């Protein structure tokens, strides 16, 4: 068999080149495609929940609107902004790794991490509010089952549930299960993303990435953008629905 010309390139191979790849280009391509394929599986994973949401929202529009109106739209909107900003810093981190600006790279990664943690902090505040109002569905929290106070006509207490005509508490509970399942799964992905970025920061400080070898930053960046996009869908679907019933 004829010897491949690529095989001789091993002599000056980059230290990060794994033995089974011919060159850095192939390794980078494999990593990027691998992440894209993984993101496809993530879409299908969240897709099951989006399907359930779509089905029951069309079945119980008033119930879902009532439940959605109780969510804190300000915190949700701030969080959306935080995430979009973090996507920007992440993209800048990828760019600065590619062009070899290490200081910018580390700074942007740290900023991304901080913004991610801010998101999780605000999310925790929101979750705590729901816990206070006994809106955590079923027996997810032992000792505090679902049981919100329902507001009467003319009562404007923010902590009580305002039901639109035709809405039932039972279906509001279903909305909150879908809300907690989807945002909880999203938050879990954020936590994993924050862990991955921490790992990137450590190796960036050690000077592991250079314009030749930057695919980990790129691939984790892809993941981070994906988690953002999920939120971009979740925000309007969960927070902004049925506002027109009220106004």
């Amino acid at each position, binding site marked *: 068999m*004829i010897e491949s010309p690529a095989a001789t390139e091993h002599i000056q191979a980059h230290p990060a080149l794994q033995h089974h790849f011919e060159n850095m280009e192939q390794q980078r391509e494999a990593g990027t*495609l*691998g992440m894209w394929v993984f993101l496809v*599986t993530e879409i*299908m994973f969240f*897709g099951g929940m989006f399907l359930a949401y779509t089905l029951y929202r069309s079945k119980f529009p008033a119930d879902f609107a009532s439940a959605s109106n109780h969510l804190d739209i300000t915190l949700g909107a701030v969080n959306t902004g935080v995430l979009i900003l973090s996507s920007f810093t992440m993209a800048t981190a990828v760019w600065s790794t590619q062009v070899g600006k290490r200081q910018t790279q580390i700074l942007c990664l740290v900023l991304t991490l901080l913004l991610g943690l801010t998101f999780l902090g605000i999310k925790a505040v929101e979750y705590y509010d729901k816990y206070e109002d006994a809106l955590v*569905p079923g027996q997810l929290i032992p000792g505090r089952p679902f049981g919100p106070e329902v507001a009467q006509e003319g009562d404007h207490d923010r902590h009580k549930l305002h039901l639109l005509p035709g809405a039932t508490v039972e279906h509001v*509970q279903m909305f909150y299960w*879908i809300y907690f399942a989807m945002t909880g799964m999203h938050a879990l992905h954020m936590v994993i993303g924050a862990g991955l970025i921490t790992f990137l920061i450590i190796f960036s400080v050690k000077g592991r990435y250079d314009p030749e070898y930057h695919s980990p930053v790129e691939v984790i960046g892809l993941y981070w953008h994906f988690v953002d996009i999920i939120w971009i869908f979740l925000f309007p679907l969960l927070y902004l629905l049925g506002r027109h019933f009220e106004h």
Partner: protein
Amino acid sequence: MRAIEAFEPPPPSKVNYINAQYGLKSWLLTKDHKRIALLYLGSITFFFFIGGLYALMIRLELLTPQGDLLQSTTYNKVFTQHGIIMIFFFLIPSIPATLGNFLVPMMIGAKDLAFPRVNLLSWYIYMLGGVITIYALLAGGVDTGWTFYTPFSTTFSNSYVVATGLGIFVNGFSSILTGLNFIVTIHTMRAPGMTWFRLPLFIWSHYATSLIMILGTPVVAITILLLAFERVARVGIFDPALGGDPILFQHLFWFYSHPAVYIMVLPSMGVVSELIANFSRKNIFGYKFVAFSSLAIAVFGFLVWGHHLFVTSQSVYAGMIFSFLSFAVAIPSAIKVFNWTATLFKSSISYDTPMLYALGFIGLFTIGGMTGLFLASLATDVHLSDTYFVVAHFHYIMVGGALMGYLGGLHYWWPKISGRMYPEGWGRFAALVIFVGFNLTFLPQFVAGYLGMPRRYHAYPPEFQVFNVLSTAGASILGFGMLIPAIYLVWSMRYGKHAEANPWHLPGLEWRTQSPPPTENFEHTPIVDWEAYEFAPPEEMEVVGRFRRELETA
């Protein structure tokens, strides 16, 4: 034709992937796709025999009409666990994780899969899922049927639904990672000159299988997760008592579980395409049709899940569309069968053991596929739904199809995997026993089901006994037949004849390296300048000549 045997194979170098390193640690921490394939081979064989034990219990119970050997609740657990073990822990990983893992890099001329660590991780995830499931079985088992239909599974069943579900959930990720690895490997790791249409059909079918794995498995993962929460915390979307719809569960479940049938049978079709072309020494008839029919099956396979819901409240119009699409998915399958048959026409067939399995596959898969059309028709399905007709149909696909392909492939590549030949006489004998035993087990079930014998009961009216006695007799033969390869393959690892690099004299890349291969598969990255299945017609021997020259220069 036989002239190809004239050349001397290069003396095999002593170091290969098996003896490159020793010790338990070198296996448990290996990143070599070939060693991981062997880890999988051992594990799935273990689960196969557990699943087989449950099958034995089912058949013994059904020998007599009275429910005497097992109580009804025990019987429910036995058939559930037979299904779960066989489907999730044997059939789905069977060909992809063993033969696919071993051969995908070798057939495309790569040193390993794109992500060797992910590959090892997938085996550990598989084992973790297996351990959780085994725990659930030992703790008391599960009785919902492998389908976990709600609200029985969420509310009424008193068995280990959550633990079993968790085992399947975890196991799903091993399947996702395998699929991901294959897709990336096939896209980015092909050797120079290995164009898409030079790929062996085994690779095409694995590509299609991987698509289903990555698109379908996450859906069943989230479904099972939601089911577990619903059972534990009484929050939910499936239970009518919580305002949910159990039919949604069935839709989500079958969105994965119907395509999962193609995860089982597509790799088998890939194996059979290899076997048919190689053992009839002829380029496959209509290469592109066979290749694209795999993709067509993967795509159409995602659009037919509703035929499992014909007898539910699903809208009749949806039923008509699903029925039509289910008929449509038969077309690419039929293309394959047609092309295999056309390949056999006027070729020089050798009836070695792998070829016997391949020929068995064509017949059994055709029966399985055609009876599937009975079930895809709206009206006949009402009569046949939940009877033994269904049981017989899907066993013809899963055992007659998937398992036959797996055994054929295992024999075919055994010289490459182990470096030893299996005993040919015993191999042919076992193939025959398995074929006879299989048909005797499941043909009578078509009749029993058509006459109205329902599935999933431990007792039945006495008029069905004759079919069940035949079936149990067949199952005994089948079980005996399965033991034969298990014994002689293990035997051959030590006592078998040493295999040469290319014992079948074939052009594929995996045969152009020593048996067993070295850790990096090839001494140098090969450059491919031949088409797939490029067999020399007897009068034109230059291809053989070139193949010989390459081996001499190597």
